[in-house]
């Protein structure tokens, strides 16, 4: 062995072969490094591309094209007593009047035979609101801006069919179109006409679902985290609980949907499509996330706190509820918000329990039929009409903004309140 070492001459790093070898190794190093950088850039690029695509498609969904319509209420065939509009009978009086026909006639007389086709199917609803607000309109000639039909709307945003583009150019020449912010998109509900859809109905459904989820998952999650971390004896039961919580966190969300369908709907006969059932299902899904985050937060509170409290005579329950839990709360809240954000974006379990119906009015309570924001996105993405593309993307923007806000809040809470012991 020592012979072999002795007979070998020391490596001469200056020879051409050695220099070349080092160069090769260094360039391999650079290549590898670039590969890593490329992977990070590519992944980030996907994210940016996704967001830019959604933003580019969706930003137009927040604007709406409106067409000017002059309605001469006095000469129209409407018979509404303006006095009836001031009392509580206003809705009944308006329902009896043929406003839809009036709008159609006015549009035809102003823009020719195809005039009614320029306006959204729900344009007359806007007229109804206007009349209700100002009954004096009925006695004069009024100029109203009404939502345009979907093809015109798309043409105004520069992507329409040639025919619609031509009509839009004509209207523009007559100074009869304008584009404004689409308030209806934020305040309305689902509709068959893409020009009339809004997300408030779905958003309220999501909100109610999240409330039920939070009300169930947070207390149960925190209490079981406290039990497992502070009191549970080391035995078979505790192990079973731990294993089931860890497994539940990894079960695909659609399985929870099947559970909700089989237990809440078919066994307990709770109302179908209701935020109550959606909330229950999502609560079962969110609870393990809260338990795991809660346990980590409780674990990070140093034992000295407990010892000190026990030392001055606190009971075991007092130690946890007066000292450990308040110190662990920021961590628990962070985990809860992240779990809720995940639940807010969840679609599959809600499809299973029937929250995919066409609901044209916002739900009034947790037992009313409702839909949720991600489900609404899914439903709109299935629509054939082209006007829904921008609405779907706009709804996605709203959803992403909320998720970003929730995650931002979680990060803020963590940075502000988390203590390093």
């Amino acid at each position, binding site marked *: 062995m020592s012979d072999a070492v002795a007979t070998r001459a020391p490596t001469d790093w200056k020879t051409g072969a050695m220099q070349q070898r080092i160069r090769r190794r260094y360039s391999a190093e650079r290549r590898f490094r670039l590969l890593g950088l490329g992977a*990070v850039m590519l992944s980030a690029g996907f994210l940016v591309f996704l967001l830019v695509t959604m933003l580019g498609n969706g930003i137009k969904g927040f604007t709406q094209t409106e067409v000017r319509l002059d309605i001469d209420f006095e000469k129209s065939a409407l018979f509404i007593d303006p006095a009836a509009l001031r009392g509580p009978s206003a809705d009944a009086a308006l329902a009896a009047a043929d406003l839809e026909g009036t709008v159609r006639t006015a549009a035809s007389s102003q823009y020719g035979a195809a005039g009614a086709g320029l306006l959204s199917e729900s344009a007359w609803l806007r007229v109804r609101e206007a009349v209700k607000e100002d009954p004096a309109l009925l006695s004069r000639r009024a100029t109203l801006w009404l939502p345009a039909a979907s093809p015109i709307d798309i043409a105004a945003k520069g992507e329409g069919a040639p025919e619609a583009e031509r009509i839009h150019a004509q209207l523009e020449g007559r100074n009869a179109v304008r584009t404004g912010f689409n308030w209806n998109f934020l305040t309305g509900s689902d509709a068959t006409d893409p020009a009339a859809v809004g997300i408030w109905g779905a958003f309220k459904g999501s909100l109610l679902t999240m409330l039920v989820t939070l009300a169930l998952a947070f207390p149960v*999650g925190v209490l079981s985290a406290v039990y497992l971390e502070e009191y549970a004896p080391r035995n078979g039961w505790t192990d079973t609980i731990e294993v089931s919580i860890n497994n539940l966190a990894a079960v695909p969300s659609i399985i*929870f949907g099947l559970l909700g369908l089989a237990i809440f709907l078919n066994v307990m006969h709770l109302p179908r499509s209701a935020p109550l059932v959606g909330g229950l299902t999502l609560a079962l899904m969110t609870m393990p996330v809260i338990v795991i985050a809660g346990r980590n937060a409780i674990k990070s509170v140093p034992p000295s706190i407990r010892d000190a409290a026990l030392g001055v005579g606190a009971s075991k329950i007092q130690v946890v509820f007066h000292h450990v839990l308040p110190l662990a709360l920021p961590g628990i809240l962070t985990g809860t918000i992240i779990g809720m954000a995940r639940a807010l974006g969840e679609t599959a379990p809600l499809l299973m329990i029937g929250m995919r119906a066409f609901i044209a009015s916002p739900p009034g309570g947790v037992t009313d039929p409702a839909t949720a924001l991600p489900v609404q996105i899914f439903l709109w993405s299935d629509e054939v009409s082209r006007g829904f593309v921008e609405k779907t993307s706009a709804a996605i923007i709203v959803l992403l903004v909320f998720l970003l806000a929730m995650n931002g809040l979680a990060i803020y809470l963590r940075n502000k309140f988390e203590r390093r012991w």
Partner: protein
Amino acid sequence: MRNPSLSLTAILLLVLGLGLAGWFAARAKARAFARPGETRPHSLPSYHGWYVLLWAVLPALLFLGVWSSVSGGLVMQAVMDSPAAANLPGFEMQRQAIFTEARALADGTKTAAFNPQATALAPVFAEATTRYTIIATVVALLLAFSGGAFAFTRVSPGFRARTKVERLVMAALLIASLIAILTTLGIVASLLFEALRFFSMVSPIEFLFGLNWSPQTAIRADQAGSSGAFGAIPLFWGTIFIGAIIAMIVAIPLGLMSAIFLTQYASATVRRWMKPLLEILAGVPTVVYGYFAALTVAPAVRGFAVALGIPGSSESALAAGLVMGIMIIPFVSSMADDSIAAVPQAMRDGSLALGATSSETIKKVLVPAALPGVVGGVLLAVSRAIGETMIVVMAAGLAANLTINPFESVTTVTTQIVQLLTGDQEFDSPKTLAAFALGLVLFIVTLLLNIVALRVVKKYREAYE
């Protein structure tokens, strides 16, 4: 008192009010004990308050819980026994419709009924509802009052109120932690029960090994494609093809290389910014990915296929798999990140000291040492990918093809579950029950993957610690 749910809230508030009054009264009584010179009472005054409050509220709440589930039946019974209900139609559906209308009239949610019989029944309904609401209110208040009074009499300096209250808190903690077990049992029971009913109609052998999937059972005998075949192999293949092959081809190299770059090469600032940025990829809702796949990626993939001269369909395995791979990147990269960081620094230093470059150290020392963790992470990512629903529902299609052409449309287990359970469904048909059988398979497979992955990761951790 017209609306029964409203009155329930009112009773609840009354009971809570009583409990609160009990809390203050008991605390005041207990405070009076603490006079100087006498023995110190066992518990703080507020514990006496809580003891009384719990005694006042809990029995009443328990009663109300039971009551709310039986009161509907009691009201119904009273209405059925009334003379107005004597000549109702015998047909169940019609009877239900009349009852629903009468109840709406009685609640005041409706002002006029379509059916005259409902109008006749409405006062009976209202009367019965009011009567039972009054009974419930009286019983609940009596329970609350007597419970509170009993507890109040026990308040004395020597009474161990804190111990009693804490015992209850302990019970609540235990019950909360049992809910996880109940959920697991609920999942297993519901899947197993429905799946067994399915397997009593379709043989498990045919389900697990059959090559033909067309669950649409015939409505007419001459209908095409209505064989009602439940061979799930094409579904399993589609799931594996998209989730475990295409998605992993995207996610493993990108995730692993990102993790290596961020842990070994990037400066602390870059790492601090890029790591959360990549994690956003995992936080984007899957429905957004699905829409992205269907709207942007699928047409591009199809265009690419056409350019290659392969006829591509608008829904392809490749589009769904690519997008799913992007979604999975952060899972792979964070697991790889953790396991690379867990490799002892001495191994890395040793390799560098021998003259290896960073990349040689990574390739020859760090990655092999971290391999079990990386494999565990990949297994977790696969389990996540095959359980993923929205991307494949929106982008993968419904045709149960057994193909290895990534430009063709395949279907997956989750897609079929959604397909079978939405739309018109009749319960008890094998078509609906098949969804639960698929769910059971999915549950078992993801569970096994997770257990194996966690075991691999754990075993490897122990080796270094």
